[in-house]
């Protein structure tokens, strides 16, 4: 179970103004502005839930994900994931989660995918039996049998993404964070990925938190939506709550952003 209570996080960013004169000034005196990425954010996610975390860019999504994965420490508030504070017991916490960064690869580029998997087995200290079972299951469900022996750089984006997702699930994490998992994928791959994630949630009761701009992903996968804007949770409900009339999901969300002025 994931609980966030009154979490706040601000950043100090150096202000950079345009123009040559400003650049010269910047050599001698740097101005700063404070960005409130998270402003009293609270929510609870129960085991086995599939949550869509949406909001415009700069709303605080990646800060939340970083805090939940233990990469970032909040300024104030409490965060508990399965009874642990993520940033305090990093190694113990991280053992139970899986993260897929859509735009960054975790596979070694020049060696066969299976070699990357073997290294992950050692990193996560997965037992031989568990590893074999996971690998069999993931290979079958994601259709990886021909891909495993190819180096990652020879795979298409869709093929690579399937391997990335498999890599994040080898150690059977209880919680899976997906950051733009279907970005750049063709329609067939997108459906395959969505289908697989749904199956994982059903069989293994994996909690899934999905951040994405692709509303079809949200529609097909999640039952609950958290809308974050300007550092605050503006909406915490289901898709049905926000749907009005026969508009497409994208139009609905655009309308939502307008309503909340984000």
């Amino acid at each position, binding site marked *: 179970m994931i609980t966030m209570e009154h979490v706040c*996080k601000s*950043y100090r960013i150096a202000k950079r103004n345009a123009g040559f004169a400003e650049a010269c000034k910047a050599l001698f005196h740097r101005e700063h502005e404070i960005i409130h990425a998270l402003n009293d954010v609270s929510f609870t996610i129960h085991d086995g839930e599939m949550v869509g975390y949406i909001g415009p860019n700069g709303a605080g999504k990646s*800060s939340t994900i*970083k805090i939940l*994965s*233990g*990469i*970032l*420490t909040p300024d104030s508030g409490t965060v508990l994931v399965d009874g642990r504070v993520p*940033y305090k017991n*990093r*190694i*113990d916490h*991280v*053992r139970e*989660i899986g*993260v897929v*960064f859509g735009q*960054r690869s*975790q596979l*070694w*580029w*020049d*060696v066969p995918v299976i*070699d*990357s998997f*073997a*290294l992950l087995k*050692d*990193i*996560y*200290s997965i037992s031989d039996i568990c590893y074999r079972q996971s690998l069999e299951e993931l290979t079958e469900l994601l259709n990886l049998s021909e891909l495993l022996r190819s*180096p990652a750089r020879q795979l298409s984006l869709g093929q690579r993404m399937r391997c990335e997702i498999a890599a994040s699930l080898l150690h059977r994490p209880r919680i899976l964070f997906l950051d733009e998992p279907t970005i750049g994928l063709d329609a067939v791959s997108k459906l395959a990925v969505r289908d697989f994630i749904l199956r994982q949630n059903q069989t293994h009761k994996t909690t899934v938190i999905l951040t994405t701009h692709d509303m079809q992903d949200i529609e097909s996968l999640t039952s609950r939506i958290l809308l974050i804007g300007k550092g605050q949770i503006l909406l915490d409900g289901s898709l049905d709550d926000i749907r009005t009339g026969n508009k497409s999901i994208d139009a609905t969300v655009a309308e939502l952003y307008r309503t909340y002025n984000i």
Partner: protein
Amino acid sequence: MKTIRLYLHYVSINIRCMMQYKTSFLLSAIGQFLVSFNVFLGIFFMFQRFSNVEGFTYSEVLLCFSVVLLEFALAEMVARGFDTFSGMVRSGEFDRILVRPQNEILQVLGSKFELTRIGRILQAVVMFTYGIVKSNVVWSLSKICTLLFMLIGGTVVFTALFFIYAALCFFTLEGLEFMNVFTDGAREFGKYPLGIYGKKMLLFMTFVIPYALIQYYPLLYILDRRTSIFYMLLPLAACWFFVPALLLWKFGVRCYQSSGS
């Protein structure tokens, strides 16, 4: 131990990656060899003109240079991940490391294993052999131990400097090239026995950054200019330098976690 096995697994995957690009590997190794060969030629030609420098002969200087080169090449081979850490922070790769249930240091070490340094290692060994043959060093068990300690201490000190560089990357990604002065610079500076540069430099390099403890003083012991066994153990004492480096690194990681890159 499991950690060592995991590290060796990292090393093996690094080497396998490198083997995919055999020409590039070969060219890199040759390139590095050429660079340090130039340095050797510099020493060679200086000694065509001068018979000694502050009492150190050509073969003694070769001995000194080869040990420093070996120490540096070993440190670079193993700790290359720290040497190129700015790239890891810039690309967000360090976030990935924080999401894995292993010690960050182990992961950064494992991210790069630079086998191309083998070119320099070979050159160092050749020069060292030449230095031994030509110099009048009378070898004994204690002197061999001294040499071993020099290698260990030297690799530790240079690795510590890479740690410091990497730690600084957490605070700023620009303007860190001055750290080269302490790593590459030390290697260049260290091609001659450090005593020739004067008393003040020697003091700095004994107490602030312990270069003299891994090069000069044990060298004096090997060349029979000092006989106290104290000099033999000094390179191990130089390992103290790793403590502040490690603390700075840990501090840097904590700052990174609170500022989110």
